[in-house]
Every structure is written in structure tokens, then in C-alpha cells.
């Protein structure tokens, strides 16, 4: 369909930051010949418009009259390739959400012009002698997401997509009768159902019993509902481990901790989208952490963005709707400096992944108006094919609205975004292993978000909730309507009319509408008498809402399109028909040894290397791209200190603007320990999350935790054995800390099948990871802490005992070793440390607190000094150790349950009184002179300026570095 084309570009005398950024990207990718890049925004408008109308909208809306100009091209006009330059034009692929186009149509309406079809594109005019192929190769990932966008070289889009082909509305049956297991498995694989032979047989038996074949839509529904993503079949399965039979791993471990502890502040756990915890007499806070690994591996920007959008909807759909107040995110990548030749075929480069993920989180979280307040980033070679993207969200809701229940007769109301082909098979895809071809095969599973549509849905839902207009709510996540309606209908029944679902474009088959994972959609159960008001509120909030069907009481899931019945299934079978899975697990500890290292002669140099490790170094470049202030609840920020550039241990929020009551949010994760002992990894994750929380003022006795697993192929007994071992260690410690698990999630099968040069294959498995997120509720945010040194002359107190635990440490990593002595947690000592330090902080005898983790004491001191812009002098001879330890171990050991406190000299007595029996030692003091001095008694081990340490710590991930100096001139 031909269209008007409007190019909008910066006036010649104006700067073009978008063009400049594109130039930096191209040159950074090795296209040195690129001499300059100018950017253009492009718009397509239906050919029905008159030229004068096109110019009117361009002038009034599309073009900034101050710094831009525009050029209008007649429909069908061909674009002459610019002189001595290539033009790269990036257009959304057909069917991909283009929110800007909708805003253009809205502007047409506001101007009283005919609302015609609209589209957008972006053009870069690249000067310099560059080969088209090279340019295209870089642009694919550097300037575009070729999973969802197409790139035109030296040509411009000549029109808008025409009408889609009519949908296939026939009810397809899939005969299973008599098929053998192999055929069933093949059928599952080819259909992207991710069901195993066992499960396919159960389905076959069920429909044989009914004497009919399942329809395609019924089969798809079962695949979605039974997917690992939705059902967690592995963690809820039966596991044979070391002669024991563990029935339902999740129930008997994680959930059991919560049940045993039975803490009174737990309002609702494991039954809803998110765990709900008492905040004050009126309100509760809820929290959920999700993973969005597979989509982010294929398309980092869209994958991470929709991950954020998804977990926000989880919280919005908790209880009878919670208001999201904070995002957290934790990423695991391969090192961003990975050499090109070490990048397996089919993987994106980790730097590309990191940049995409960060902007994806930024461009969804910020427009939603939800602050991203806490997170961390971890690096390991084995994340190259499976980067991990953990996204979390916290919400607040009246405790009276903590529980939901749909009733027969309630209307099924779908609101928010429209349904398209995006995200078909996301849930099942996320249960499969990635491989070289995944990117091309699974493009369909990638979704593109539209945060403003979600914002409108959020505003509408919260407005309805305030008027108590619905009896149940859930979000459309994995599996789309099929999971959302299927879950809500459990124990009831439902009739759905798919033709009522608003579509982004024509041509969707009923089964596609049913399982599409198009974003920004919520489902409500609305009592009939409240329906009109719900639709009224949605209208007022500019949020599209339709009645999709009705909840019934016959326990059947009936899905129709017009009069054709595409699904009529027993909900009992859908929810309970999944055969129990029995898995073999075993654990054999790896044979490792401590490295034989020559005595360290340059501790200052070693510290510089440790501070410059990607895992340790400053994440300011990432943090500052996130809005961490919106909602005005921030009382403890992600960066702290005199210049707000020191690392914070946790986020402190006061979510109710007229109250000082708050929450402290922190996390703990160290994938490297997993390579030595998954039990160590799990314990340390929990202890670190708790240390971080306590250091910032969290109350260890009013803290809940979340467990988020990312693991390899659990069909491999050793891999599953590692998971069981880690889980049991984690649960043992959590029980001891009296910190209940309130929510969790697992992402299994994080393996990448890489094709090698010789045509062979190699499986890259991630180190097993459990991210522990901690949320503490505190009475007064004014009694919280930061890590930056405050006062020269203060004493520095190291709480806890240091052991010979360099296994998995950053120090060993910088020397190219792993080691064997991974840190373990001494349960009793650890709990006493957490409570002792909390008492001391509440008693007001602490000026600054920081937990010791990666890089040990030496790094912790440096980080606190960087925040405070003052120096410190440390004597390691005085610290409490477990047996004799050399100076290097004292400086770099990563023993857990240790915090460094800054204490005014005259408060040392109070400190001791509050620490009770907890071992501690005064190890030095804060100095006016910005110098870091580490000694062993009289012998100086290292001396370097804080500025020196700061530079090492800041440089590695300061991706704007070049720009900063540029703009600084």
C-alpha cells in the first residue's frame, strides 16, 4: 500500500546526538572509515491524504520547529541514494508493535484530519567508504534489532503493510490415537509444545478415553499449562537423591521453611502472583522476582523490557491489585571484553547483550514511573549462550485486598493491550535448550513492549480496585489468555468467545489469539452488576477493555470463536492431569585444589585488579540510566557518598509519602562459588542478601526472602543433584535466620548447544545460580545507613571471623585460578553477626556500614573510601581469624558474615555492648588524607590514593567514558 513519506532531520546548524551515537557504535564495531552519521526520523501516512494535509501534520506534530526540518515525498516517489553516503533505514517488521504510529494517528484526529494508516522508520545517513555488507552486519545488532526490525540499505520503505490474509478459523483436530511414543514426541517437538513422551501419552490416554482427538487449541492449552515455565514440574516432581525419595522438592524444602517458621507478618505466600507481607496496620507490601532469560538471549532489548513489564503485571495482579513501587534487576553475562573468536556461533556478543538488556529495562521501567532501585551484575564465561535477566517488582496494597476469588457468573474482562502474533510459544520455548539456530527459529517468542499501554492498564486496574469493582485479577503472562483464564477458572469453569478479543491486526487463528503472549494485558473477574462501571473507568483511563466471556460452575474450559467450539476440556485434567515426574539426582563433588601461588609482592596492584573486575567495579553507567527517584519514596539510593558515586548495599524506600515507615531491598548472588560447591553458592547468596540488608538498616527479624533458580539441564542427575544440595543448604540456613521464603521461580535448562569449527557440538551449561532477594520492613527510614566513610578519625571495626576462604574469590580469578576453599556459612555465628550489627546501628553507634563480599576486606575499605572521599589506614594483624592466615588471605578472603563498620571513637563502648558476644576487632581508622594504607603490624602491605582506586573501580563499565571526556571539554 503506497504512502506519503515524511523525513524529519536536524537543521544543518544543530547537533544530532542520535547520529553521533550511531557513529560511535559503528566505529566501535571496527568501521573506522565511518566519517559521519546524520539521523532522520521517518513517517509513513496513507496516500489518501492531500499534500497540504500531510504538510499540516508534519508542521504541527512530526517536526520540531526549533531544531528540525522536514521533507515530504509523494507516494511512490523513489529515494535517490544520498551522495557519497549509504543510508540505513530501520523499519519495524510487519506485525511488530509500533506505538508511535498510533500516536501519529491520534494527532491526525486532534488536528481534525482523516485518520489514515501510519507507520514510522529511522534512517541513518552514513558518510565514508564502507562496504555495504560490513555496514549491514554491524547495523543488524548495533543500530537495530533484526529479530523485530528490518534494515533497508540505500532505499526507503515504499509503503505501509497491506491487509493481512484472512485467518484460518477451522477447528483442527490432532489425531493421537494409536501413535507410538516416538511419534508423539516428534509431534510435540515439531509443534513446539515442549511436552515429553510421558506427558504426550497422558494426553493421548485422556482423549482416547473420551473417544475423540484433541483439537489443536486444546493441545496448545495443555502444552502452555503443563510447561515447565507454568507448572515447575521439575521442582514439584519426585526426586531420588542419595538413597532418599524427595516427594515434591519445592514443597518439602522451600515451602516447608515458610510453613515451619509460620511468621505472623506473612499475609499470603506461594498462592498468588507475589508474596504478600504486612507493612503496617493498613497496608501490605508484595514482592515477586522473575527471570526472562530466553527472550533476552535472542533479543536483549525486547526480552529484558518485556521481562520488566511482565513482573510489574505480576504485582499489579496480586491480591485484588497492588500498586508497583519499585523494580530490581540482576543480570549475569559473559565478560563484555570476550574476544570475537571466542564467541560461539549463534550467540550475541555479551557487550551487545548487556547494552540491549540495560536499555530494555530502562525504556520499560522509566516510562512506567516505577523506580529501579536495586540490582547487581555478575560475569562468567558460561553465560555466553544463556545470559540471565532477573527482574523483580515490589508493590503495596491494602491488606484487606490481599485475597481474591472469582465466582461463577463473573464476567471475564480483558483489558490493556491488543492481541497480536507476538510471543507465540514463549512459555514452551522457555522450557527448551537454546542452540545455534534458536535465534532464527524462535523469533516468534520475542515480544516488544509498549510501556504506556501498560501504564494505562495499571491506572485503570488501580482505579477499579479502589472502587472494589472486581473479585479476582491476574496478568496475561506466559501462555497468554490460555494460562490467565485457565488459572482463574480452576475450580469453576469458563466460556470464552475469542472473537471478542481486540486484535492488533487481522489474520490471527483462534489458537493464536488464545496463546499469544502479547504484552500489557490483564484479566479481571467482574461481578455482572459492576461490569458497566468497570468499562466506564477503563474508558476514562484511555484503556481498552472487553468482555471475553463468563466464569461458570461446570469445571469445564470452553473456548469458542463465534459458534465454533475450539476447546471443551475438563479443568480437572488440565490442572491435575500432568503425570508426576520422577527424577534421578546424584552429587559428586568436583576434584579441585588450592593453587600454589607465590607470596603476593604487590598488594596494591592486586587491589587495582580486583577493583577493576567486571563483577566488582562500579555499575554507575547502568544505574544512572534507570529512574531511581520517581514516586519520591527513595530514602537510600543505589549510589551514596559525598558525590553520590559510592556503592550502596541496599535500597531504602518510604513508599507512603506521609510516613517514615519503610522497606529495605537487597540481593545476594555469587555464581562463581557454584563451580566449587552449589551449597556454598546458596548459603552465601542468602547471607550476602541479609548482610546487605542489615548494613543498610534492615531488620533481620522482619525480613522475607525470595529464591530464584537458574539452572542447567536437570535431566542430568549430577546437575539435579547440585540443585538439591544447594536447596537443602539454603533452606537449612533460612530456617536458622527465621527468614521465610514468600515467592520464588525457576528457570531450568539454561544450556547452549554450540556448533564448533569442526562441525562438532559442545554444550555450555551455566553455573547453577540461586538469586536471593531480601525485603525487610522497618519502622523508620531515618535509622538507616550508607556505606560511605563519614568522619576522619573514626574507628574501623571488622565484625566477624576471617577464614582461609579464597576459593571462587575475585583475587583468585584475577590470578586465573578457581581454588577449592569456597566460603561456607557458620549458621550460629552468622545469625549473631546480623542481629548484633542491627542492634548497633539502631543504637546509633555506627556512622557507616558495608558488607564484605567480592574482593574481601581490601575492596570493602576502598569502596567505603570512594564514597566518602577520605582515606583509611588498616592493620590486618588485629583482625579475628580462624587459625593462622597470611596477609593476602586476610585482605582478600571472601569469608561470609563479615561487615566493616565506621564507629566514632567515643562510641566503641556502646558498640561492644550491642554486639554482645559477636567477635569483632578494631582494624584501623578513617583518615583525612585520601590515601588507602594497608599494613600487617609495622609492615606496610599497600598504599595507594583513593583517586587511584576510584579510577580502577570506575573505568571498566563506564561505557560513556569517551563521551564524558568529550562532553566535558
Amino acid at each position: 500500500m503506497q504512502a506519503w513519506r515524511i523525513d524529519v532531520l536536524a537543521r544543518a546548524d544543530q547537533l544530532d546526538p542520535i547520529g553521533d551515537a550511531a557513529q560511535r557504535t559503528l566505529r566501535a564495531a571496527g568501521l573506522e572509515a565511518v566519517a559521519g552519521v546524520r539521523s532522520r526520523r521517518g513517517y509513513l501516512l496513507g496516500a489518501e491524504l492531500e499534500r497540504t494535509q500531510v504538510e499540516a501534520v508534519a508542521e504541527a506534530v512530526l517536526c520540531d520547529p526549533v531544531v528540525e526540518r522536514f521533507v515530504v515525498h509523494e507516494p511512490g516517489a523513489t529515494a535517490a541514494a544520498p551522495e557519497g553516503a549509504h543510508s540505513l533505514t530501520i523499519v519495524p517488521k510487519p506485525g511488530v508493535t509500533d506505538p508511535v504510529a498510533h500516536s501519529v494517528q491520534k494527532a491526525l484526529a486532534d488536528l481534525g484530519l482523516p485518520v489514515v494508516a501510519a507507520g514510522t522508520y529511522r534512517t541513518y545517513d552514513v558518510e565514508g567508504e564502507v562496504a555495504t555488507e560490513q555496514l549491514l552486519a554491524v547495523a543488524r545488532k548495533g543500530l537495530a534489532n533484526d529479530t523485530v526490525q528490518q534494515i533497508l540499505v540505500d532505499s526507503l520503505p515504499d509503503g505501509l503493510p497491506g491487509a493481512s490474509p484472512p485467518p484460518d478459523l477451522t477447528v483442527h483436530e490432532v489425531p493421537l490415537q494409536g501413535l507410538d511414543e516416538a511419534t508423539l514426541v516428534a509431534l510435540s517437538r515439531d509443534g513446539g509444545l515442549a511436552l515429553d513422551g510421558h506427558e504426550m501419552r497422558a494426553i493421548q490416554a485422556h482423549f482416547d478415553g473420551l473417544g475423540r482427538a484433541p483439537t489443536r487449541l486444546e493441545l496448545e492449552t495443555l502444552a502452555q499449562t503443563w510447561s515447565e515455565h507454568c507448572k515447575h514440574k521439575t521442582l514439584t516432581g519426585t526426586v531420588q537423591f542419595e538413597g532418599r525419595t524427595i516427594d515434591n522438592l519445592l514443597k518439602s524444602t522451600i515451602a516447608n521453611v515458610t510453613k515451619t517458621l509460620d511468621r505472623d507478618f506473612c499475609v499470603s505466600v506461594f498462592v498468588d502472583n507475589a508474596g504478600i507481607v504486612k507493612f503496617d496496620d493498613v497496608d501490605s507490601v508484595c514482592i515477586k522476582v522473575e527471570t526472562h532469560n530466553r527472550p533476552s538471549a535472542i533479543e536483549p532489548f525486547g526480552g529484558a523490557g518485556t521481562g520488566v513489564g511482565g513482573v510489574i503485571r505480576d504485582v499489579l495482579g496480586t491480591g485484588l491489585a497492588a500498586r508497583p513501587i519499585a523494580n530490581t534487576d540482576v543480570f549475569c553475562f559473559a565478560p563484555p571484553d570476550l574476544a570475537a573468536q571466542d564467541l560461539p556461533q549463534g550467540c550475541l556478543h555479551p557487550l551487545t547483550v548487556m547494552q540491549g538488556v540495560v536499555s530494555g529495562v530502562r525504556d520499560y521501567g522509566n516510562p512506567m514511573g516505577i523506580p529501579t532501585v536495586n540490582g547487581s551484575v555478575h560475569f562468567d564465561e558460561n553465560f555466553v549462550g544463556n545470559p540471565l535477566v532477573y527482574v523483580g517488582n515490589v508493590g503495596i496494597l491494602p491488606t484487606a485486598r490481599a485475597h481474591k476469588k472469582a465466582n461463577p457468573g463473573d464476567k471475564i474482562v480483558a483489558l490493556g493491550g491488543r492481541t497480536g502474533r507476538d510471543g507465540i510459544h514463549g512459555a514452551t520455548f522457555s522450557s527448551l535448550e537454546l542452540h545455534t539456530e534458536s535465534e532464527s527459529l524462535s523469533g516468534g517468542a520475542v515480544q516488544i513492549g509498549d510501556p504506556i499501554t501498560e501504564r494505562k492498564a495499571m491506572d485503570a486496574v488501580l482505579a477499579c480496585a479502589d472502587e472494589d469493582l472486581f473479585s479476582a485479577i491476574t496478568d496475561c503472562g506466559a501462555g497468554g489468555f490460555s494460562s490467565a483464564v485457565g488459572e482463574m477458572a480452576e475450580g469453576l469453569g469458563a466460556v470464552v468467545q475469542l472473537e471478542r478479543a481486540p486484535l492488533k491486526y487481522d489474520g490471527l487463528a483462534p489458537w493464536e489469539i488464545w496463546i499469544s503472549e502479547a504484552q500489557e494485558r490483564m484479566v479481571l473477574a467482574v461481578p455482572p452488576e459492576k461490569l458497566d462501571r468497570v468499562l466506564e473507568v477503563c474508558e476514562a483511563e484511555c484503556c481498552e477493555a472487553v468482555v471475553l466471556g463468563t466464569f461458570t460452575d461446570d469445571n469445564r474450559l470452553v473456548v469458542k470463536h463465534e459458534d465454533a467450539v475450539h476447546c471443551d476440556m475438563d479443568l480437572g485434567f488440565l490442572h491435575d492431569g500432568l503425570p508426576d515426574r520422577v527424577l534421578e539426582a546424584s552429587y559428586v563433588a568436583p576434584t579441585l585444589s588450592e593453587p600454589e601461588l607465590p607470596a603476593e609482592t604487590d598488594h596494591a596492584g592486586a587491589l587495582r585488579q580486583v577493583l577493576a573486575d567486571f563483577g566488582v567495579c562500579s555499575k554507575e553507567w547502568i544505574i544512572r540510566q534507570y529512574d531511581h527517584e520517581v514516586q519520591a519514596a527513595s530514602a537510600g539510593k543505589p549510589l551514596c557518598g559525598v558525590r553520590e558515586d559510592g556503592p550502596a548495599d541496599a535500597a531504602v524506600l518510604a513508599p507512603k509519602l506521609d510516613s517514615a515507615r519503610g522497606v529495605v531491598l537487597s540481593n545476594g548472588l555469587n555464581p562463581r562459588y557454584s563451580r566449587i560447591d552449589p551449597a556454598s553458592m546458596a548459603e552465601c547468596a542468602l547471607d550476602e542478601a541479609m548482610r546487605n540488608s542489615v548494613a543498610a538498616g534492615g531488620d533481620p527479624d522482619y525480613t522475607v526472602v525470595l529464591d530464584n533458580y537458574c539452572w542447567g539441564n536437570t535431566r542430568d542427575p549430577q546437575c539435579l543433584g547440585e540443585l538439591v544440595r544447594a536447596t537443602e543448604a539454603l533452606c537449612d540456613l533460612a530456617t536458622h535466620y527465621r527468614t521465610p521464603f514468600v515467592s520464588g521461580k525457576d528457570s531450568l535448562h539454561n544450556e547452549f548447544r554450540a556448533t564448533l569449527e569442526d562441525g562438532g557440538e559442545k554444550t555450555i551449561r551455566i553455573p547453577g545460580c540461586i538469586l536471593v532477594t531480601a525485603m525487610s520492613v522497618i519502622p523508620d527510614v531515618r535509622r538507616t545507613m550508607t556505606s560511605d566513610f563519614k568522619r576522619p578519625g573514626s574507628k574501623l571495626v571488622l565484625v566477624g571471623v576471617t577464614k582461609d576462604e579464597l576459593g571462587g574469590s575475585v583475587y583468585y580469578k584475577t590470578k586465573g585460578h578457581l581454588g577449592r576453599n569456597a566460603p561456607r556459612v557458620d549458621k550460629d555465628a552468622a545469625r549473631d553477626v546480623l542481629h548484633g550489627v542491627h542492634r548497633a546501628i539502631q543504637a546509633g553507634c555506627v556512622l557507616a556500614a558495608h558488607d564484605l563480599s567480592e574482593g574481601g576486606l581490601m575492596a570493602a575499605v576502598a569502596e567505603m573510601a570512594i564514597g566518602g572521599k577520605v582515606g583509611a589506614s588498616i592493620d590486618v594483624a588485629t583482625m579475628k581469624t580462624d587459625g593462622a592466615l597470611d596477609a593476602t588471605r586476610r585482605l582478600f578472603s571472601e569469608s561470609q558474615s563479615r561487615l566493616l563498620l565506621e564507629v566514632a571513637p567515643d562510641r566503641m563502648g556502646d558498640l561492644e555492648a550491642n554486639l554482645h558476644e559477636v567477635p569483632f576487632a578494631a582494624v584501623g581508622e578513617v583518615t583525612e588524607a585520601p590515601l588507602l594504607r594497608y599494613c600487617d603490624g609495622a609492615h606496610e602491605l599497600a598504599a595507594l590514593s583513593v583517586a587511584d582506586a576510584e579510577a580502577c573501580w570506575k573505568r571498566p563499565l563506564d561505557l560513556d567514558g569517551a563521551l564524558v571526556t568529550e562532553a566535558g571539554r
Partner: protein
Amino acid sequence: MSAPKALILRAPGINCERETHHAFERAGAVSEYVHIKKLLAQPELLDRFQILSVPGGFSYGDDISSGRVLAQEMKARLGDRVLQFVDRGGLAFGICNGFQVLVRLGLLPCVSDRLEETVTLTHNLSNHYECRWVTLKTRTSRCVFLPEGLTVRWPAAHGEGRLMTRDRAALQTLLDEGFAAVQYVDEAGAPTERYPDNPNGAPLGIAGLTNHNGRVLGVMPHPDRSYLPTHMPNWRRTLLDDGALPADGDGMVVFREMVRAARAEG
């Protein structure tokens, strides 16, 4: 006169309405949310208010360019009502995206008595969104409520905040004729174009504008995120140095003064 009424504008994508609402109430105003849809349907609603506040956010996703779609909607469907509101003694305040909206609407700097788009807020030199605390100084300007010579710290959080005119001379005029109300300053307190003290690279460090009669103010950084003492990034140091926290954060002054001015009018 009784407490001034502040209209807190809501629209798809505006997301700082709660804190703006609260800050105005804390300053003694009575805040009321009004959705743009409702205001377009009943423009006369404006007359019930003394203050019109356009909060920050991403109105309509900042599609096309920041604030453009909402500004266009208001221009096309409210016409000069906003202008009349201001001329009849009302006060208007745009923060961040709200500032972008008022600029695109032509209400800022509005050197004459008609809506005219003469400046823009465009992409930061870094070409990405950035959230960081900045130091600002209020200038001697036409603004009838913003005290001059104040040095305050507010957080900036935007991707399109570089205030530009057709040419540099026009920028200088904004300064000389008292339309530039707020500037980014460096540690020495001097206006700066230097990153990161100036987060977006705005020439002459202009961070906020007022209009010809000084009744409209627009700022890129957020007083609505710095009005409580615990909003300030180093409140713990203040507590340590002074033994107590001040009653307000640095952003509160602008809400107080605006409400005071509105009250004086009535």
C-alpha cells in the same frame, strides 16, 4: 483567602502525579487530579483552580518527541484557555515532561501574549536518559514566585532536556530578559555547560524558564522528588553535622512560594 486549589494534570504516561499532588498539599494547597480527557471535555474546570501543574512522566510515551502529543492535544482542543488561565491570575508549573509539554504548547517562554513554540527541549548530548542529582541556582527572573539567588540540589531524570533555540543569540536573550529562571551550576556556583554538572549539555546551563508575566514556571529537574528531608542524597551527613534533619528538602521551597503567591492573588 482559603487554600489555593492546584489542578494536578493526569494523562496517559504522566507518572509523577502522586508526589506532585503530595508536595502541593504539603505546601498548603488543595490538590486535585484531573485527567486530560476530562479537562478536554470540560475546559471550564480550569477556572476552579489557581494553580495548573503538569507533572513529569512520559506523556503518550513521548512518542514523536517528548511531550509533543499531549501538547498538541492541548493546543488543538484547549486553544488559548491555558493562556487566559495564566493571564487571569492563575499560575502554571511544569516539571520535567510537564516542562516539555508547556514548551511545545508555546506557553514557555511565551515572550508575548500568544502561544508560540520558540524553544525546544531536545536529546541529551549523552543520547540517553540519565538520573542524577544536580546543583541549581535560581536567577533574577520575571518569575513572580521563585526566589532569586537560591542554590538547591534537585534530581534530574530525563533523556530530552537540552534546552535549545534557533540560535545562540536567542538563548542569551532568554537570560538577558529574565526568561531563564534556573541554571545548572558547578561546584563554584557558576552556570555550567559541563557534564555531568549539566546533565544534558544545555547551552548556558539553562534548566528552567518562566514566561513574560512570570506566572508560568518550567524546570527539567525534579523539586517533586526532593521536597522531603530524606529525599536528599546526603541527609545522613546533614543529620550528623546538625544533629537534626531540616523540615524540608531543597525542592519544597518552590511549592511553598507558588502556593504563597497564589494565596496572595486571592
